[in-house]
Structures are given as structure tokens and as C-alpha cells.
């Protein structure tokens, strides 16, 4: 029991010390005009799963993202309103165009 706890604490401490940016993007890589859109995306799309789901998705075209966001919006209790869609899609379009960059990846 104590060993398991010690191991858990050690892993947690190492992870926190390495301080990664979590599942999301570091705010510094996002252009200022898209900061609000990113915040909206990060808040709405982390409700049922981590941001790794959309950020790791093999989705690139605007039409495919549109289909995804509409699909997720229709999930029960999605918390995504029709007003949220344009901002989320703006961020996702920028992300798809820049995801190859080392700092964004």
C-alpha cells in the first residue's frame, strides 16, 4: 500500500516537475486575435474528453471540422451552442494549418 502510494507520488512529482502544458496548447503560440477562440474551444471541447481528442484527430479540412463540431454539439449535454461554432471553427482552421510546427505540436 505504502509502496503504491510512494510510486504514485513519485510519478506525479516527476510529471509536474517536467511541467508539460497539459493537453492543450501553450497560449504563447496562439496569435492574439485567436486567443478568445482558443479559450472557447478549450472550454467547450474539454467537457467530455480531454483536448487530446480534437488536437490529436486526423481531421484537417474545414468541412470535416464543421461535421465534427456539429456532431459533438448534438451530443447530450454538450454545452456547445450554435453561437460557439464560428469561434471554435476559426481556431480549428488555424490549428490544422499550423499543427506541423514544433511549438504547436
Amino acid at each position, binding site marked *: *500500500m505504502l509502496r*503504491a*502510494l510512494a*510510486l*504514485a507520488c513519485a*510519478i*506525479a512529482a516527476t*510529471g*509536474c516537475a*517536467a*511541467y*508539460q*502544458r*497539459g*493537453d*492543450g496548447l501553450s497560449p504563447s503560440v496562439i496569435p492574439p486575435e485567436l486567443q478568445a477562440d482558443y479559450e472557447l474551444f478549450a*472550454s467547450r471541447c*474539454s*467537457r*467530455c*474528453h*480531454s*483536448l*487530446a*481528442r480534437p*488536437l*490529436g*484527430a*486526423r*481531421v484537417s*479540412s474545414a*468541412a*470535416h471540422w464543421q*461535421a*465534427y463540431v*456539429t*456532431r459533438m*454539439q*448534438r*451530443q*447530450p*449535454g*454538450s*454545452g456547445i*451552442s*450554435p*453561437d460557439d461554432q464560428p469561434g471554435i471553427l476559426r481556431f480549428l482552421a488555424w490549428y490544422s494549418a499550423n499543427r506541423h510546427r514544433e511549438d504547436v505540436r
Partner: protein
Amino acid sequence: MRGPRLAAMVFTAGVFLPFAARAVDFNFAGTLQLDYLFTPLSLDRPPLGRRPFDGFTQELSLKVAADLSEHVTANVKVCYGCHGFEVGMAYVDYRLGGGVTFRAGRFSPSFGEFGLRHDPGNHRLPDKPLPYDMGRMLHLLEFDRSVLPAPYVDNGVEVLGHHSLGRAVTLDWAAHAVTGLRARSEAPYDIEFTQSRQLPYIDNNARPSVGGRVGLQFRIAPRTDLTVGASTLYGPYDNNANLQYLVAGTDLWLRIGRSNIRAEYLYRRTDMAAGDQARFEQPLGPMGAALPASVAQHRDGWYIEWEQPVLRNLDLIVRWDGLRRSGNVRPNSPLDSEAGISRLTLGTHLTVSRGFRVKAAVEHYTIWGLREQNSQEIAAHLGVVATF
């Protein structure tokens, strides 16, 4: 040899050429969780066969979502876990106008809130809440099963609706007709969940089960939402369609910024085949009276969970959950007619890098109604999860 190879080529071409000919958007997604459950207090207490297993469990899921057109999406998900390979999803959604979606195939019928997050990549603790447990809780063998082991996957059709009622309120609803949970024996005491999953194509009683969910969501502030919902499932489960189950639940979810508070309550009433006093420990009715053909057992369960981000990559989770069973028992049952579990869990969820996380939790169990002895037990989980 040539025959089967040709058939395989024709089949493959038949499946993929239509997609290649049209612009179909595919996305692949997967989750892998490996969790170690450690039960230190059980080590010196035989018989171990009745105790939970200390050890690893692995859950893997691979999913393809194909957007066939603006209105149609097909989803196929294969899972590998304690029951071997299973099809967790194989359905098609047709999105009609006005927020209505028609779904057909093999899917998880809408029920409660946890059902959406059942994938280990989506929930933050290593294991599921007790009312949805599928084999990881302590004393599983004595309690048999939880209220509704998740994921509950079934074949059938569902209609789902999602409507904005003004700017701040959203209504979600879903109604389904599915094959239903089942037991293959002629005189069951309970639903056989493993069989319900493993015989996916044959309905044992040719009578569908029905159910649905209604939920309302309120946007209280730009980053604060409250969701409340109520769900139900109802149907016959034995071969002769004489014994029924009713599952009902209510769910609540408050999200403030990145903090989540979730609560659910589930209840299941299940008819047990009676008619024979030798099958039960307590009298089935007054002396001399005709014996009832069935008696009910009741299971209910709940959880309240608070998920609090403390760093960008670290969440703390506190959960209180429980499971109770009441009703007549079979002779030599390890349980009294009133038995239950209450559990307190403290967990952490650490994102090491995008898509790779470490989950750790310590759980304190209080168990009552166990003939052997009531007990307090401690369990610890340590797991890694990758989403890709």
C-alpha cells in the same frame, strides 16, 4: 485457396471502393488503459478466490468515424478488455433537420451521464463509479453486478433530439428500442450481463426493451453550465419474457470553468423467477398461500464526484459512491437480504504529455450485509492511459 482469396478481394473492394469514389472523411481514434489494482488488506485474508484480484487490467479501444455526407456518419469501435474482443459501436447516424438524429445499429443506448464518458480515455479516475462498475469493485463475486455495468451496448434504433430553448437553455432527449438485457436460463435470479454482451445477434425473447433520456442544460454564465437529466430502461429479460427489469436514473452536472461536479443516482428493479421455495432463503409468501411466480430484487447506486484542476496538467478528484442490494436471496448466499458498499476515492490525473496520462487513486470501502463479515477495505489503483 483461390476462391476465398478472390472473395476477400471482392469484399474489400466492395467495402472500400464506394468510399474511395466519394469524398468520405475518416477519423481514427483509440484509447489504451493499463491499470494496476492493489488490495493490500486482502493479502492475509483467505479465501482469495472470493476476494478481488490484485493485478493489471487492460482496456483497448479502436474507433473509426466516417462522415459519409453532411447528414450521415458511421461509427465502428472495437474494444479489447476483460471479455476479449467486443464490438462497442457499429452504428450509423442520420442527422435530420431541427436537431433530430436517427441512429441504427449497435450502440450504447442513451442513459445517464457517465455512459458518454465510459471510455477510459474520457473519465479521469482509473475505475468507474460503483453503479456502473463492470468487474473492478471489491467483492464483485458476492454482489454479482452493479446497477448497470458500463458500457451498456445493444442493438436497435434510437432517435435523439437537441434543441435550443432560447440562448441559455438546451433540451436533449433520446428514445430507443433495443434487443434488451437478457438471461438465458429458464429461472434466472438476475440479468446475466456478460451473456447480454456476448450474444449480440440473438434476442432471447423476441421482445424489445425501450427507454430514453431527457436532459436540460442551463448556461448560467459564459463558463458555467448546469445539466440535469432523467433516464429509464425497461424490458423483459428471460427467455419467456415473463420477468422484467426497470432501470431509472437521474443525473446532475455542474461545470464551473474547468471544475466539474457530477452526481448520479441509479435504481434497478429486477424480477427473480420464484414459484419454488427451495430457491430462496426467506419465505416467498404466507404459509399455505400459493407461491408467487416472481419476486423483485432492488439495486441502487450513486456517485458524487468533484474534479478540480490544480495545475494545467494535474487534476484532483474526490468521489463518494455506493451500491446497495435488497431483496430475498438464494440459500447459502454470501449476502444478507440488505447489503451494500460505500466507497470514498481520492485520485489524481496527470497529463504527462498530450495524449498520455497517469491516473492514481486510493479507495476506502465500507461493506455491510456480507455474511462472512462486514469490512473496511483499502484499494489503490495506478494506471496509464494513452489516447491517440
